């Protein structure tokens, strides 16, 4: 009888011990999972250790300043009206008889040593192994510190998604083996996109055989958007003139203040954004 009881007690204790161990184990597992979830970034970073390094080369001799890239980008990525992930800075130089327009298409440089990446407090901005600088929209807290850190002013505060946003080199298209929308649409074939680690690629050859420049090399961010025949004066223009500053400074709140005829526009954008967000989440689910 007593032995029986002892046995039972032992069993109970054992079971309890087992439960304890199992419980702790489970908690640890859950914690670990939580932590890995926090650490998990995008598909690209975890999956493709391919040794690729994406970059873009813009041959300004071929750029005609048609803005097709901006339009294509805005369509592809549902960029809200009034914001740009890529835009073309245009400057007219000289006087009558000796005039020329200069263009600089500008986008995120996907810097090697990206200061935005270093300064983001929650690692919402991150570098993939292919060298892209991306923003995790589910993680960004919208402190906008990256916006003021970036020396190229390429980031903007997405008014509907309420995070920052910027050029992604069309990462969703790259995954499907397509080129970024701006590259594909460029009428003068001024934009060359590819892997600069691949010695046979078009971009590698073009960089090797031309004199190339980058914007603001003194900032030491090692940009990966290269230019051929970049005009310094064009790049610098507009910084010194206070009138321009006033004109180009924007008051986002006033601009987006709901005034009559913009309501419908905004509604349409909102719909577009939620669509894009859904797609983004779906993609994330497919390739966790």
């Amino acid at each position: 009888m007593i032995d029986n009881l002892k046995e039972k007690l032992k069993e109970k204790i054992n079971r309890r011990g087992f439960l304890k161990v199992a419980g702790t184990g489970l908690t640890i597992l859950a914690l670990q999972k939580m932590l890995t979830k926090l650490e998990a970034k995008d598909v690209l970073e975890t999956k493709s250790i391919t040794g690729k390094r994406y970059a873009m080369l813009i041959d300004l001799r071929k750029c005609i300043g048609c803005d097709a890239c901006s339009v294509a980008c805005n369509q592809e990525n549902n960029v809200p009206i009034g914001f740009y992930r890529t835009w073309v800075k245009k400057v007219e130089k000289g006087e009558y008889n000796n005039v020329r327009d200069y263009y600089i298409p500008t986008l995120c440089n996907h810097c090697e040593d990206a200061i935005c990446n270093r300064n983001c407090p929650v690692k919402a901005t991150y570098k993939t192994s292919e060298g892209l600088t991306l923003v995790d929209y589910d993680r960004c807290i919208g402190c906008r510190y990256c916006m003021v850190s970036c020396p190229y002013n390429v980031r903007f505060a997405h008014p509907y998604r309420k995070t920052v946003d910027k050029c992604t080199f069309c990462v969703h298209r790259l995954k499907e083996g397509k080129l970024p929308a701006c590259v594909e649409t460029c009428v003068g074939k001024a934009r060359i996109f590819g892997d600069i680690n691949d010695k046979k690629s078009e971009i590698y050859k073009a960089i090797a055989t031309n004199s190339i420049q980058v914007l603001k090399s003194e900032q030491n961010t090692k940009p990966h958007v290269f230019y051929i025949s970049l005009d310094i004066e064009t790049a610098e223009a507009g910084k010194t003139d206070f009138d321009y500053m006033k004109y180009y400074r924007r008051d986002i709140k006033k601009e987006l203040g709901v005034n009559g005829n913009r309501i419908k526009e905004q509604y349409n954008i909102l719909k577009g954004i939620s669509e894009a967000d859904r797609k983004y989440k779906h993609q994330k689910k497919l390739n966790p």
Partner: protein
Amino acid sequence: MDNIIYMSTHEIPLLTKIANYFYLTGISAASFIISSLAYVFGMEKYKDCGKISAIIAFGGICIAPIFLIMDLMQIPRMFYLFFMFNFESPLTWGTIILSLYILNCFLYLYYIFKENKKNLKLFGIIGIMLAISLEAYTGFVLALGKGIALWNTPLMPIYFLISAMVSGTALLIIIVVIKEKFFTNFEIINKIFPQIQNEVIYDLGKMLAVFIAIDLFIAFSDVILLFYSTPENSIVARVLLKGPFNIMFLFGEILFGMVIPFFIFILPKFNKNIALLTFASFLILIGVWFMRYVTVVGGQYVPLM
């Protein structure tokens, strides 16, 4: 010669809320340091105003983060700051320092009213280090904003620290004067906060004059260096001196915020006149706010691309 046809529109991401945040953390950190004069370094003279400034320190640091949080675009995600660290980012340093500092301020205040000397000293010493790091980190936040010429200077942390000391001392003078003037008839207040002699205010004024002198010197070095440095920097110097921020900078920050109060505090003719000292302290408080505003917003005013 160049005629700009199109250039990206340019928004200013960080505005008044961030300036207010820097302003309040500055006041809080400085008040803590002043308060520690009495309780850590044993200057008995400042004991009674040390109590007041400890309260200012705690109050300031309770309000300050509200501005920071309200400025986020994703307010519910603010908790991410405590789970996902990026130790390269000054904002993460800030999260850690700020949380520790709030805790420390609370304990420090608690032990002041418990009159527990040993613990008080311990938390005072930790608190001084935290207060200095708190101010320095706000400077680093700006200094590491690489693209912006006005911010990207090693002077920034020390500029912030010293102007914080200026504003903290000025606020203390104002509050002490108000208390002595209007609240002498309340029993409870007199019990907790004993009367403060005018001599203490004069001494605080002298201290303030020294801080202002250092502050002026740093502001001067900053502008001189900006003026003669790279093209970006000289544009920023022109924004400050000739551009849209010149009234705020030259009059708000320098003339009314530093030079006039400085003379009020050092000239023997004025520096025993309590009303004038209070007035000067008010000017300083406004001037330091302008300094924060000009630094935060003026820096972002120049288009980058």
